[in-house]
């Protein structure tokens, strides 16, 4: 698709909604993605899970249609209409055949801007969200990730899962949902990206027609304070009757706007996020020693308006736990001690430039990239500039980034599994 995607067009509607469109002709499909600054970042104290719940209720009925009527309209076209809530945003995403783009945009606008928070629907969504939270308790990976975030973000709202906690979700009411929707679902702080097998100008017209009546200006600037780095190590062990011990190691890292973001991307590839099993962690611990099936790390992927996390994750049998953790810690220290080789940097840069191209193959991927570029003020020409930016990263830049984002002396270390490992000596070895 990348070759057939036109240069994006950008338009700000009179109500403040930013619309970015691109024509993509390789398949007769479209994706529309409306992204609001309405993620769990804006959950009130004691109200964790509210943003996700509002997102979930959107499809349960609007002022003019029931949930079933919405579902029938979507399914009849063979389209999809879903919502997705993360830490910073909630997205409503429609996709399907290009011939149904207009009708799908109208539906998308309707569910996002005119939901009805009927008490029965809210109660049912609360029930479903509680069930999902309970289900997560049975997945060691989910528990390990959740408790890692809780440990890194101790004292900060991001310590809570996006889906909230059972004790907070069960207290939420329709009034809470309505209030959140009124405050956060506003055109002036939202981005709509539409990509598909239509003319980009036509897509703009369809967007304007569907969303022109949405009123409300921008959302209030009530984000929580930026999180701060931990001081010292935090070690948590969760006992669980599993075959493997799941391990998370990491710390608060950088925001997308951080000057070291691109060098961090290169470091990620070298350390734990490469093609296949070519990263240092995978090569050393999986390919050479067979200690784990999954071993990976990343610091740039979670960088947003706020700093994300450096997160290394692996899982192994209890008998390999000690050797594996020592190996991970050795690699974390090594990448902070000396610059990577020129060959490693050259290879990582090549990988990132190629992956950037590969990431533009589908309409939904392109739509996601347009939203990302808009939210982070990267400019419509970012795709064209990216190769030069990433190619300018040097070995010293990578070393500096590693020292900035990886902090073994002040990291969080979470294990989930059948044993409570003695970790102190492992981390220091």
């Amino acid at each position: 698709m990348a070759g057939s995607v036109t240069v994006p067009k950008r338009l700000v509607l009179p109500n403040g909604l930013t619309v970015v469109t691109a024509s993509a002709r390789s398949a007769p499909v479209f994706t529309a993605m409306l992204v609001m600054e309405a993620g769990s970042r804006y959950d009130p104290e004691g109200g964790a899970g509210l943003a996700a719940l509002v997102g979930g209720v959107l499809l349960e009925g609007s002022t003019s249609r029931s949930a079933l009527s919405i579902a029938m309209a979507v399914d009849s076209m063979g389209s999809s209409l879903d919502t997705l809530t993360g830490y910073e945003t909630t997205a409503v995403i429609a996709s399907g055949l290009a011939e149904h783009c207009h009708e799908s945009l109208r539906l998308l606008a309707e569910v996002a801007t005119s939901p009805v928070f009927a008490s029965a629907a809210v109660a049912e969504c609360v029930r479903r969200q509680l069930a999902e939270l309970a289900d997560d308790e049975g997945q060691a990976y989910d528990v390990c990730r959740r408790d890692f975030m809780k440990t890194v973000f101790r004292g900060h709202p991001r310590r809570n899962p996006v889906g909230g906690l059972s004790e907070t979700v069960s207290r939420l009411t329709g009034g809470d949902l309505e209030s959140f929707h009124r405050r956060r679902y506003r055109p002036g702080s939202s981005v709509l990206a539409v990509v598909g097998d239509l003319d980009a100008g036509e897509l703009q017209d369809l967007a304007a027609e569907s969303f022109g009546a949405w009123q409300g200006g921008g959302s209030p600037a009530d984000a929580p304070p930026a999180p701060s780095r931990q001081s010292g190590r935090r070690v948590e062990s969760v006992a669980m009757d599993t075959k493997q011990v799941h391990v998370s190691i990491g710390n608060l890292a950088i925001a997308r706007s951080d000057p070291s973001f691109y060098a961090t991307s290169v470091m990620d590839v070298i350390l734990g996020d490469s093609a296949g099993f070519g990263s240092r962690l995978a090569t050393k611990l999986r390919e050479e020693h067979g200690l784990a099936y999954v071993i990976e790390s990343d610091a740039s992927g979670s960088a947003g308006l706020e700093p994300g996390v450096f997160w290394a994750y692996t899982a192994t049998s209890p008998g390999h736990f000690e050797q594996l953790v020592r190996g991970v810690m050795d690699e974390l220290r090594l990448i902070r001690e000396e610059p990577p080789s020129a060959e490693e940097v050259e290879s990582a840069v090549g990988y990132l430039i190629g992956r950037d191209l590969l990431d533009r193959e589908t309409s939904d991927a392109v739509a996601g990239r347009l939203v990302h570029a808009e939210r982070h003020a990267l400019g419509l020409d970012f795709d064209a500039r990216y190769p030069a930016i990433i190619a300018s990263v040097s070995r010293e830049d990578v070393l500096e980034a590693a020292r900035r984002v990886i902090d073994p002396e002040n990291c969080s270390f979470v294990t989930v599994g059948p044993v409570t490992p003695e970790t102190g000596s492992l981390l220091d070895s």
Partner: protein
Amino acid sequence: MSSTRPRKAVLANGLVLLTVTREDSPIVAALLMYRAGSLYEPVGKTGLAHLTEHMMFRGTPTRPQGWIDRLTGHLGGTNNAMTTCDHALYYFVLPSEHWAAPLEIEADRMFHCEFGPEAFETERRVAVEERMMLDDDPETLVYEAVDALAFDSHPYRYPVVGLMRDIKGLTPGDLQGFYADRYRPEKAVLAVVGNVEHERVLAEVEKLSSVAGPLPAGASARVEDDSADPDAASSDAGASARVARGNDISARFEDPPPTEPRRSVLRGLSPSPQAVLAFRTPAAAHEDTPALELLAALLSSGRSARMYTRLVDDLGMATEVSTSKIPQVDPGLFYLSASLHSGVSPEECEDEILSLVSGLVESGVTEDELSRALNLTRVDLMLGRETCLGQAGSAAFWESLGDWRLGEEHETRLARVTAADIRRVASTYLDPAGRSSAWLVP
């Protein structure tokens, strides 16, 4: 010029090459699919196909371990591999100019993969860790349990990754034997999709085959240029007649469907209950497959589907529902699954699902329902082919069954399915007496 239809060539060594030219794509996908899935494992050697797939990254005399991943990354691409019940498949997605690189790699490891004892032991440790990871996933275990119930002797009853005791008992010799038997050009389909020219790809593959494999010197490829003959598509007597070339094993298995309900209850693995039902269904190329696929969509695709409206909306019993009819070489399974709210008994849910199916058999389905199911299925197929890799996988899969045009026929047949067909296949295949069910009970 760009064409959405594959062009095909059969090399003298039996390798089938499919290419699809997408002139505007800056990306190329190369996918090599061997008929080397777990279906072909000897008794007591589960996990053999999967471990062999792992070993394909362990190197050849000219490309040591790690070389493939390093080159892939350097070229700005991705690669991976996967083993299913039927196939082992290997793929690369790269910027277009590097289209020849994966062909060289695949030609090399098709003939020269090494199974040294040290590398084998290391990779087996990785496979053991993968098995343990799956053992920690209740969703995986409930499906493994229902598969084991639904078949008595067919290899589909075993997990692709293998049983732990079998994985630990495998030897380098087992892998060498499997590799020699299954990793052969006549048991493989290579699909290349992107901004490539068929003739250049064919020339490259021929050259590589003559260097790396048993292509007799001077032999030339036998070329079938299907895209030049659009009328050749969609003839029921055409592609279907060529089904199952190379499907050289299924006749070994005499494994009739269950005649009484079978049940497995897995306790204490998950905090949330779940019910999974499975019914035996025909192979992918069977004429009833399109109707079964639409039946699956009608039951659970979208929020207006029958299982969703009944179990999630009306009864508040389930949090999620799903159905699937996985296209497979041999007769496989039709799954119906529901993840349940705490306190809901899987038995109660199973009864509801059976009641829903019997209602459908008794009263049939509406034209509106059928139309929704068809539209959802067609859009799914279209989105699946949006990427070069998706299109390569689809073409290679149908070709591995005998002819890539089976995929086109399949879509033509989807459009011809009637409400009566849906009712008939539901009655024929979703017989409650033949069900196998597995429950997760907290």
